[in-house]
């Protein structure tokens, strides 16, 4: 894992001091709310439905045990005993006091954490593959690239007042576990002639106008990466729309002028920027990459796992994934207990996960965009002990990627932008499909719920997606099928008229019944939908 040096620490400490100064000026009246808002947002502080909300960055979703314990401490000391892991691989707290915020940031800084640029019209936390460094299918570990981008984008003087927020994802595997092409910039690290470079996609995103990012360049050498991204951002900063906040994301610019013309403008700017000498020397990349060297995996470990406990065997088959090192496995901890709140974890549960990471996973954990936690490097011989400890903490739900592993935004229970509640609907769906055997029979089924058009719950990318809308003051839900945020990226299509809460659960059940009746061997729900098209599903739902 990356470790701060004195420069990184000084930068984060200075940011805490800066924000403390800004909060004091807000409380004294020197700053109006209008002026203060972008400053607090760039430190992750929102004013939400019930209180201030603080979003803490977990860069590319990687954190260590010490940092996890700090997250639990913040939950206990400054919030109401829990936190919510988000689709941006961050964590947010719902009950923060403005006057506490500088102290919280100061505490986070003691473990090399911060809330910098977790909101605002700037470059946000870089997201990445939760299996980085553990997956067998990766070309290289994407995290050194993500860390390099974290540093470059932190306090970027030119790109802190962009037309709109800006999200970057970096992956390095054929399987896309980070919804890479649904980002403003998606980077896939590929190998060409023995060199690693970036395949760059620009202009994806969800929100009210979902778009899949087109490829802008097939290979940017590492030595040019910052110049190239600087060019991408500069074209956007200059020409992205500022007349209408709903059309201000880069996807609209790329769509309006066309990917080819955008790419041409970037190339022109790049030719200019490249000459400025802003790119890092190879030595700096190597310095960063050294922090992500594989941990000291033991050799000669046993590959056999005792499957005699049937509940353990079910969890093993669903939540444990192959690791590149012999004798190791990747453990997914589901934060989706049936009837629970997707992505929420209590301070006690966070502490348990910190302990397990320390004892069994080289001190490392990951947050996934599906709002789960990963222990990336667990010896197969330790899996049973890990499972037992998780079960005791209510963290052993064996439902990874099944219908009850629902992504849901906080919705109208917490969010001031929401039009409808997401969490109670997620609970109802999970409860309807609670039978584990039934869930396994349905297989991989990614169900994603957003409480408003901003799509924080990634509903466009759900095999089944649900969007909450406000229909004359009552909650209403639009259903869509066929989305995916993975390497088979696609955008969901609305089935037809919306439903009330119970209606949408019934509709999902009718659609999954149809899938079970019509699927061919090896087909997932989304595959059957793609083969059959919307019509039979519509018929099943609306009769």
């Amino acid at each position: 894992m990356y470790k701060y040096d004195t420069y990184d620490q000084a930068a984060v400490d200075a940011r805490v001091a800066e924000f403390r100064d800004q909060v004091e000026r807000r409380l004294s009246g020197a700053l109006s709310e209008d002026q203060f808002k972008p400053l607090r947002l760039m430190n992750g502080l929102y004013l939400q439905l019930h209180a201030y909300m603080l979003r803490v960055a977990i860069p590319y979703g990687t954190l260590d045990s010490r940092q996890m314990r700090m997250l639990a401490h913040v939950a206990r000391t400054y919030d109401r005993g829990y936190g919510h892991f988000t689709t941006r691989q961050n964590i947010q707290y719902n009950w923060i006091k403005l006057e506490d915020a500088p102290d919280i940031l100061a505490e986070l800084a003691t473990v090399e954490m911060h809330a910098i640029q977790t909101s605002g019209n700037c470059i946000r936390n870089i997201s990445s593959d939760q299996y980085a460094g553990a997956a067998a299918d990766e070309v290289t570990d994407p995290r050194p690239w993500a860390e390099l981008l974290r540093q470059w984008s932190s306090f970027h003087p030119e790109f802190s007042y962009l037309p709109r927020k800006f999200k970057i994802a970096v992956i390095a595997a054929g399987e896309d576990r980070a919804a890479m092409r649904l980002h403003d910039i998606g980077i896939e690290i590929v190998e060409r002639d023995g060199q690693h470079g970036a395949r760059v996609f620009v202009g994806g995103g969800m929100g009210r106008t979902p778009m899949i990012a087109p490829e802008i360049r097939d290979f940017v050498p590492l030595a040019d990466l910052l110049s190239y991204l600087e060019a991408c951002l500069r074209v956007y900063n200059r020409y992205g729309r500022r007349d209408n906040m709903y059309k201000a994301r880069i996807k609209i610019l790329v769509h309006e002028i066309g990917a080819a013309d955008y790419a041409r403008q970037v190339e022109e700017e790049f030719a200019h920027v490249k000459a400025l000498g802003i790119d890092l020397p190879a030595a700096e990349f190597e310095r960063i990459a050294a922090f992500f060297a594989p941990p000291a995996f033991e050799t000669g470990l046993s590959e056999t796992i005792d499957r005699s406990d049937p509940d353990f065997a079910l969890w093993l088959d669903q939540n444990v994934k192959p690791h590149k090192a012999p004798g190791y496995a990747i453990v997914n901890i589901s934060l989706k207990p049936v009837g629970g709140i997707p992505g929420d974890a209590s301070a006690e549960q966070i502490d348990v996960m910190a302990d397990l990471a320390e004892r069994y996973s080289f001190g490392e954990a990951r947050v996934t965009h599906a709002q789960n936690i990963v222990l990336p490097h667990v010896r197969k011989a330790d899996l049973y002990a890990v499972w037992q400890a998780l079960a005791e903490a209510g963290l052993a739900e064996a439902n990874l990627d099944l219908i009850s592993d629902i992504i849901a935004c906080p919705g109208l229970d917490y969010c001031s932008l929401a039009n409808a509640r997401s969490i109670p609907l997620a609970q109802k769906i999970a409860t309807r499909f609670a039978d584990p055997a039934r869930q396994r029979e349905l297989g991989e089924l990614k169900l994603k719920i957003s409480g408003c058009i901003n799509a924080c719950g990634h509903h466009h990318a759900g095999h089944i997606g649900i969007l909450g809308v406000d229909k004359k003051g009552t909650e209403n839900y639009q259903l869509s099928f066929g989305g995916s945020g993975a390497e088979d990226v696609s955008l969901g299509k609305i089935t037809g008229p919306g439903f009330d809460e119970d209606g949408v659960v019934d509709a999902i059940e009718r659609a999954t019944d149809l899938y079970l009746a019509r699927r061919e061997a090896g087909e997932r729900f989304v595959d059957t939908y793609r083969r059959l098209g919307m019509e039979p599903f519509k018929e099943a739902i609306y009769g």
Partner: protein
Amino acid sequence: MRILTGNDLKSGDVVWWTGSDWSRHVEDAADVSERGEAIAREEEAARRVNVPYVIDAAATPEGPRPAHIKDRIRALGPTVRADLTLRPADPAAGSWVI
């Protein structure tokens, strides 16, 4: 009736204008009729409230009830965590929210 709400600047707590001060309980909210915006401007300038706004509400024997579901949820707390609402000990407290 029209009532005035906002958040406490320091704590972020949801607050309601009582006619002379701010309360955390919607039951204390006073009818501001047409004076809401003026009170909001004055109170915000004095930093006694943050981001105030006027909403429609129904007068009931139990007190004012906001017209829109969003403000009803604001008034009591998240519907999915009764333990975190203003009335954690009363399971029926949220019957009017949804």
